[in-house]
């Protein structure tokens, strides 16, 4: 039986040469994303912005989006975003947060039930008041910051400074590009999006660590191999594993995108894209960055330190 091979054995692909393409590419993408971020910002969902989200299902089977839009805007709760989504007859309505504190939000749901309750089933009702949304913003920001701090601590313990810096560059790159995906697609950014970003932080670090573990091992084994060659070798020897793991994760998430239903679709798509970004950056961003950060810096320092110790009688 012939088995599947995603990556040939004993490959000698010159990954490091590609940095002349991938570094400018990543830099440009990062800049464009930063620009777009300040221009458009994220499409915050009600978790962070507050307000009311309704999901309606037409009892007759067909929804009249235009009519619902007109009627809901006439309710006097400000501009309502009405969207068709998922299967036939499903609509989502997003009401902005109302002036007048916590109690004012309840009126929205009541009015909407009176207006649309005849023709539509209310499949989902979510109301988040100004205080809770403020707290969720705090929790979300804290989550991202804490995870980066935790990553920093982990790398500090686990690797020498140059390798740790390289891994950190890769992780920041992946977080930035994932946020960029939200900016470009204007997918709703909610608490589950934070979960996706944190998971991507974990995955990104995982990918880098597997390659760097090998780099370190090879550094000990081949004391005189040039940096570029050694990094190429680290990636070539781990590439089969990287490809297979990326594939299994990709396949699982693909199933989630295809069959998981619209409630989880956003999360699944972001994760799917995130996996691709992480795999790319571990190979083409973190590793080549070591060429500039100095691969053997710590080794030479250690050697120098050993020499001074030896010089003392």
């Amino acid at each position, binding site marked *: *039986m012939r*088995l*599947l*091979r*995603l990556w040939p054995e004993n490959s000698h692909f010159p990954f490091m040469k590609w940095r002349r393409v991938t570094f400018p590419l990543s830099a440009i993408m990062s800049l464009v994303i930063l620009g777009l971020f300040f221009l458009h910002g994220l499409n915050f969902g009600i978790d962070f912005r507050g307000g009311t989200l309704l999901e309606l299902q037409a009892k007759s089977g067909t929804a009249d989006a235009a009519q619902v839009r007109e009627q809901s805007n006439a309710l006097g709760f400000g501009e309502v975003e009405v969207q068709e989504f998922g299967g036939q007859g499903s609509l989502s309505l997003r009401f902005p947060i109302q002036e007048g*504190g916590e*109690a004012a*939000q*309840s009126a929205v*749901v*009541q009015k909407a*039930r009176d207006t649309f309750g005849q023709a539509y089933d*209310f*499949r*989902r*009702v979510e*109301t*988040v*008041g100004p205080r809770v949304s403020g707290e969720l913003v705090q*929790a979300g920001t804290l*989550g991202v910051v*804490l995870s980066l701090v*935790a990553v920093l601590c*982990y790398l500090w313990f*686990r690797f020498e400074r140059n390798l740790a810096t390289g891994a950190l560059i890769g992780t920041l790159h992946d977080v930035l590009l994932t946020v960029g995906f939200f900016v470009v697609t204007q997918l709703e950014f909610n*608490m*589950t999006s*934070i*979960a996706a970003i*944190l*998971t991507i*932080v*974990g*995955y990104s*670090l*995982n990918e880098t*660590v*597997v390659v760097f*573990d090998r780099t370190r091992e090879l550094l000990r084994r081949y004391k005189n191999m040039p940096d570029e060659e050694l990094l190429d070798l680290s990636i070539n020897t781990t590439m089969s*594993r990287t490809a*297979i*793991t990326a594939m*299994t*994760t*990709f*396949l*699982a*998430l*693909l*199933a*989630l995108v*295809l*069959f*998981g*239903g619209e*409630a*989880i679709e956003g*999360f*699944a798509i972001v*994760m799917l894209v995130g996996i691709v970004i992480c795999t790319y950056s571990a190979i083409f961003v973190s590793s080549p960055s070591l060429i500039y950060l100095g691969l053997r810096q710590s080794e030479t320092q250690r050697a120098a330190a050993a020499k001074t110790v030896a010089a003392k009688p």
Partner: protein
Amino acid sequence: MLHYSRTKTILTLLVVALGLLFVVPNLLSPQARARLPSFLQNTIVLGLDLQGGSHILLEVDAQALRNEKLEALRDQVRTALRDARIGYTGLGNAGQGVQVRLRDVADLQAATTKLRELRNPISSSLLGNTGQFDLDVTNTPDGLVTLTPTEAGVDARIRSAVDQSIEIVRRRVDELGTTEPSIQRQGADRILVQVPGLQDPQRLKELIGTTAKLTFRMVDVTMPVQQAEATRPPPESEILVGAENPNEKYLVEKRILVAGEDLVDAQPGFSQQTNEPIVSFRFNSNGARRFATATQQNVGKPFAIVLDNKVISAPRINEPITGGSGQISGSFTVESANNLAILLRAGALPAPLTVVEERTVGPGLGQDSIDAGTKATIYAAIFVVIFMFATYGTFGLIANIALIIHVGLIFGLMSLIGATLTLPGIAGIVLTIGTAVDSNVLIYERIREEFHSGRSMVSAIQAGFERAFATIVDSNSTMAIAAVILFLLGSGPVKGFAVVFVLGILTTVITAVTMTRMMIALWYRWTRAKALPF
């Protein structure tokens, strides 16, 4: 030597079997489950996003509590100074406290001492008496005494208000007759109410959103209400509006004859004369006595039944009511009479509750999510299983067995700790299916390398496990960083994702490392293969 001892094999299988055993109760009907031993009663709880139902987060109105405290404090100060015969010229709110200006500075010491008696020590359940007071009493030489509720006092008050409210909310929610509502404290000043299966929480919100402070007071007939409005009401009275019609005004005495605390029962019913919906009630002995005395003294005068500072009705006292029971008639509908009866039976909330978050999922959407989640999980497993087999052959099969047991163990552990499965939790399981085989991949790739570098089968397999292990620990700890932070910060559905993720990381060590090793040892003992199957 590629050896996996019999004891170790039995131990591994035992742990796995035990883990999988905890999944069993989830698959049985409640009747069948009841016959299992007690340690097998735990099942996975479906989150409200899968089960359908309402999640409502309430917040105790701390400002209302503060205002109420200040108002009560003013009354106390007034009474205390009157009792001590100390004259004052001004009594009013100042910032977060109450300020009183004495007429005679010579009284300063006496007044301060007297007012200090109003302080109550704060006791906490842990420390007993904390030595702190709920009130700061300070004075200035020019005859100004300030009473400020302390932060600790306010906190203690909020805490006890939340405790009381939880009890009352529970009684009110129980009246709805829904299955297994959960009511719990969240943070310092919040209450989380979760009611599975509830589709329209409007009635629930009405029931919880009413403070239901019921008082019986006399109507002040010393001046017409219009005159009181035009000039200023007598100091002992206030103007209240009607519950039905806000344009209807009443001049009502502030003094309370009897309050809702003295009710022992309230039932909806119909008036025998008019056949309109009414609420009939019964006082306890204390309330009955006070109500009897009050009605005896005031025959012919109107009194007001006041609910949350709105007058429900103001009937005339035709004869003394001594039986300790009575009825409230207003313009009730059957439902509003029923609601009021529930509220009166459950008692008044110590402070108003505000809904700060509501999430309701209809049962249809919940079922759709379960179906879609199940489908995604099955397809993810099929994709990964096929891919692993196509890549690694026999070793792929071994990885697949480990994977299936891995997912089983996650469910087993979730049942054991009674964890909640949410939709993001299902997504977590799907993601785990993709990432769990990473450990197998790391090991297999390493074995392949070692074998191709000239080692024997046994030595390559052994080296593969040993050398991959450090990387497996690394790769799982990196993923754990994200999972643990999510667990600490997330709430509800997102926390469900974190739980699955954490459990997934823990069980990988058992399945991907230990079980895989055992199966490969068995495989080698059977086949004595000279080459790797991949």
